[in-house]
């Protein structure tokens, strides 16, 4: 018995050491640095203890709070669109039709496209003077003049970024939900049909409960992805116009590598982690109370 315990730990140790060394330790160090006024270069010599000042500054700083708002907006919109499109396409791909295997493969393609390529591609499609979206919509007489899709200082630009992001990422939800749908035995549908249930009833009573585990996984993954979004925003808009699309991660990046204020950047990143953990803990509580075991 003792021998087994020894073997168990021996096998675990390398991974644990690595994770502790490159995740655990740096994370604790980030928390520590967030309490200092520290420059990025030669920070150990010039670090000055400031306590929670960096955090207080974050909460009274309107542009950072704007960043929090942009991040929440991005997350909420992208979670809703991803789940909605994922469920609808999964239900479609669960039907019988000619060429189904081909379409199921096709759906994977956007997901496999690198994020950077996706961002660059959609920036080109949205281009105000030569973009394909402008060309398409004018030729279909939906809009009269070419528009600057990434030019509005309100939430419009962020919405366009979310659409580009969703196009690439919702297929993951499709794959997860489709796998869930395929687990539902066909006999159940037959049985309920005999009982005279309409499709709305079938959807609520059988389909939705059947794919709930997949939906919860999708929800957690999409929430984490949304709350830490950086790459697509950085590449499509560089945070602009006029900070309209800067997210929390973007502020961390800007603070550390633009203004070289390491302490303040660390405080921003700790706030980001806290927001993610609050959401995830909320989901876990929700999952437990709903009685879906993990």
């Amino acid at each position, binding site marked *: 018995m003792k021998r087994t315990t020894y073997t168990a730990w021996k096998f675990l140790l390398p991974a644990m050491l690595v994770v502790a060394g490159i995740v655990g330790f740096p994370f604790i160090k980030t928390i520590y640095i967030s309490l200092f006024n520290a420059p990025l270069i030669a920070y150990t010599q010039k670090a000055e203890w400031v306590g929670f000042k960096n955090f207080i500054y974050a909460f009274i700083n309107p542009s950072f709070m704007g960043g929090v708002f942009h991040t929440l907006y991005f997350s909420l919109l992208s979670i809703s669109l991803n789940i909605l499109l994922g469920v609808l396409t999964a239900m479609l791909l669960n039907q019988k039709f000619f060429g189904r295997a081909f379409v199921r493969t096709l759906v994977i393609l956007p997901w496999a496209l690198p994020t950077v390529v996706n961002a660059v591609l959609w920036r080109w499609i949205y281009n105000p003077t030569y973009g394909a979206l402008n*060309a398409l919509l004018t030729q279909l007489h939906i809009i009269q003049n070419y528009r600057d899709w990434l030019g509005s200082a309100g939430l419009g630009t962020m919405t366009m970024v979310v659409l580009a992001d969703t196009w690439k990422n919702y297929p993951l939800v499709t794959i997860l939900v489709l796998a*869930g749908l395929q687990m539902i035995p066909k006999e159940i549908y037959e049985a309920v049909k005999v009982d005279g249930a309409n499709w709305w009833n079938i959807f609520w009573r059988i389909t939705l409960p059947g794919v709930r585990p997949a939906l919860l996984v999708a929800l957690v993954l999409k929430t984490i992805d949304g709350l830490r979004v950086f790459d697509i925003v950085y590449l499509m808009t560089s945070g602009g116009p006029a900070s309209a699309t800067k997210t929390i991660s973007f502020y961390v990046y800007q603070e550390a590598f633009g203004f070289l204020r390491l302490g303040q950047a660390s405080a921003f990143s700790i706030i980001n982690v806290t927001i993610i953990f609050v959401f995830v803990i909320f989901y876990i509580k929700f999952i437990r109370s709903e009685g879906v075991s993990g």
Partner: protein
Amino acid sequence: MRRSSYHGHKILKFIFIYFFVILLIASIIAPFFWLIVSSLANLKDLVAKPLHWIPRHLNLERYREIFFGQVGISFRYALRNSILVALLATGASFVLSLLAAYSLSRFPGKYRSNLLYVMLATYMMPPVAILLSLYIMLRQVHLVNTIWGLSIVYSSFLTPFLTWILKGFIDSIPKEIEEAATIDGASRILILLRIVIPVAVPGIIAAVLLGVLMSWDEFFYALIFTSTNQAITLPVAIAQFTKRHSIDYGMMAAGGVVAALPPIILAVLLQRYLIQGLTSGSVKG
């Protein structure tokens, strides 16, 4: 009467399904079509108004430039770096994760089971939570802007993720196949190598594939930790390229096609494993 309304219903459903299937196919293909067209068309066609959807002149000039020309130098280095980092990071994380996953699956002690959740929590960490400290640490050991440094950084998310995936697969392998060997007194590492690994091949393919795809796609860490040809990966090369030649969208499209081909080919060829890997955690709940 009843019969015909039944048929009417069927036809409606048929039209309904095919309408949305075509819509779905079009929505997926159109952006890809435009990416490929933009990489091949003459600039004149791309900036024409009204836009020429089917370009009049096609050429492979941009691809030639990427693989053999001056503009493509960074790109070719980045291609090499991306391949090396994906292999190094995934390879190292895979070995660590396989050992850990085997231990967590076969010896689920009370403390050790909690470690799986620690792994998962680690995976949830946003890059910004560890980025700054990692940057300082790697700078002290002169690993910033190296392939090795970036691979170490990637292990931070690959190790927990691959452990999670592999544990799911090993859980589904019956314990009994190991019993005979245990009685013979074979060591655990030998059992893992000789008995578990051959049975776990689909899971291993899935895990390695996901690791490679994640490394290939990663941008934020690469942006911070690499800056010159000796270490930049493809995403960074493309980003640098867009900042420098912001007007030449054709060139960016060509670079995009080249960067996108490896993951897309892998995902399509290995889609069975990919889907198994992605769904292994969720279907069981």
